[in-house]
């Protein structure tokens, strides 16, 4: 099994995407865990899947549908109430518009 080394750059990008700020200690621990995961994926890749159709779903059921009927009323006040910051029936979030 090939040894996997995850670079500092990949770690930094992964943290950024996951919105995590890890301490050095946590980062090393995560790096080792992720390297192990990659090793596990290598093991799976050893299996010959030639001629095997990709698995679309693990569910034993398919085609669970709703009919196209409006059943929800106005739930604005209940929902917006849950937010830490709100204004005029809208959610207030840190500035995002460029």
């Amino acid at each position, binding site marked *: 099994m090939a040894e996997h080394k995850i670079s500092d750059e990949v770690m930094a990008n992964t943290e950024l995407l996951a919105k995590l700020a890890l301490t050095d200690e946590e980062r090393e621990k995560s790096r080792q865990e992720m390297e192990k995961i990659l090793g596990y994926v290598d093991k799976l890749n050893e299996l010959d899947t030639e001629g095997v159709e990709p698995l*679309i779903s693990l569910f034993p059921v398919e085609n669970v*549908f709703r009919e*196209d009927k409006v059943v929800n009323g106005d739930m*604005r006040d209940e929902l917006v109430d849950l937010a830490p910051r709100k*204004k*005029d029936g809208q959610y207030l*979030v840190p500035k995002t518009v460029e």
Partner: protein
Amino acid sequence: MMEKQYETVIGLEVHVELASATKIFCGCSTKFGGAPNTHTCPVCTGMPGSLPVLNRQVVEYALALGLAANCGINQHCRFDRKNYFYPDNPQNYQISQLYVPICHDGWLMVDTSVGPKKIRIHEMHMEEDAGKLIHDEWEDCSLVDYNRSGVPLVEIVSEPDMRSAEEVIAYLEKLRMICQYLGVSDCKLQEGSMRADVNLSVREVGSDKLGTRTEMKNLNSFKAIARAIDGERARQIELLEEGRSVVQETRRWDDNKEYSYAMRSKEDAKDYRYFPDPDLPSVYIDDEWISRVKKAQPEMQPEKAARYQKDYGLSEYDAKQLTQSRHLAELFEKTADLCGNPKKAANWFLGETLRLLKERGLEEEEVEFSPEHLAALIVSVEKGEVNNQGAKEVFEKIFDEDVEPMAYIEAHGLKISQSAGEAKAVVDKILAANADAVEKYKNGEEKVLGFLVGQIMKEMKGKCNPGQMKELIISKVK
């Protein structure tokens, strides 16, 4: 040194909002323009523990569109999560289709000035729309409205087969026409129910290697798209000429400044960490479902135009013009059938209707007059009850206010006098007053007839039928 010649290579990602009554995964209304957050529920605001359930109509619409665009169907398809962190997206992922989209490998034939061209479609997939962010100056924060969150979209990804703004617009018009004919989307660019992202690169003519592309967003009219394409082409060529390189990035087009600005470097697909959505069972579209959707397909534009030529005796050009909008075509058909005169009906649609549309700045879909009213007007003109000038006035009222034409004609004194006695008296009067003209006519000067008819029309303030007056003069003078 010879100047380098460049070719523009363009592929489009087009999003169309589907016309379903409810959102893709919950029973909230999709109606445009509601007060912020009044069309939301725990599902489309991403509350923990809520469970999405797929709207059958969304699959139906996506299937209809895929079949009309000559796509193959992945009969077994499923949804994936596209992860990104942005407040327009309350779940921190968008439910979309990456690995097995519903439709693949289609094509559309589009009309260009140099003839038809085939534009290939890579794939089409179903996904949910995001909410809307509005900047709040007072708080220096953003306000979020999730009414649009979860509105169903189909994204249509073309191959990089287009070479000019003209081809891009021809492709978009074709796509819009198909959507409108199928009734799957109203495709209003201004309201955002059709949105196009333009992937563009340039390369030297003769090269078969693709250059580095950029993606342009925020294009909300065909004109803006055309300007953005020309602007981005020029920007990329300038970079290459200066020996610099194009950076792969997403750019936002500012149509007022006619310039695009870099938004962010383009994420790789892997940055979105796509994975199958465990909340949604897969979709299986059996052969029977496909054939049912195929059978339910309405008459599309090419067939409609062919029928107009065959059944109504219209020219190829007129038939094509009349069928660009399904809505107008249906109004025309009803009018033609009611008045029994397809050619006259066609003239009203190709002439006055299109003129008024342009003048009023309306979309074809917004025309709402009753075909019964136009048909009655056409019959009335044919009977000689109203002259052409009067008819145009009446039609404008039908177009704007859908007035009942006969009542309007009566009320506004546009009706040509039907009293034979009155007309005869006027004819006698005019003939007596223009004895020299009558003499000329008797001597074979046919053209004075027109002058005499003109005099009668003037006397009767236009309320008479010129053809009848002409006959009356001839019968009197003989």
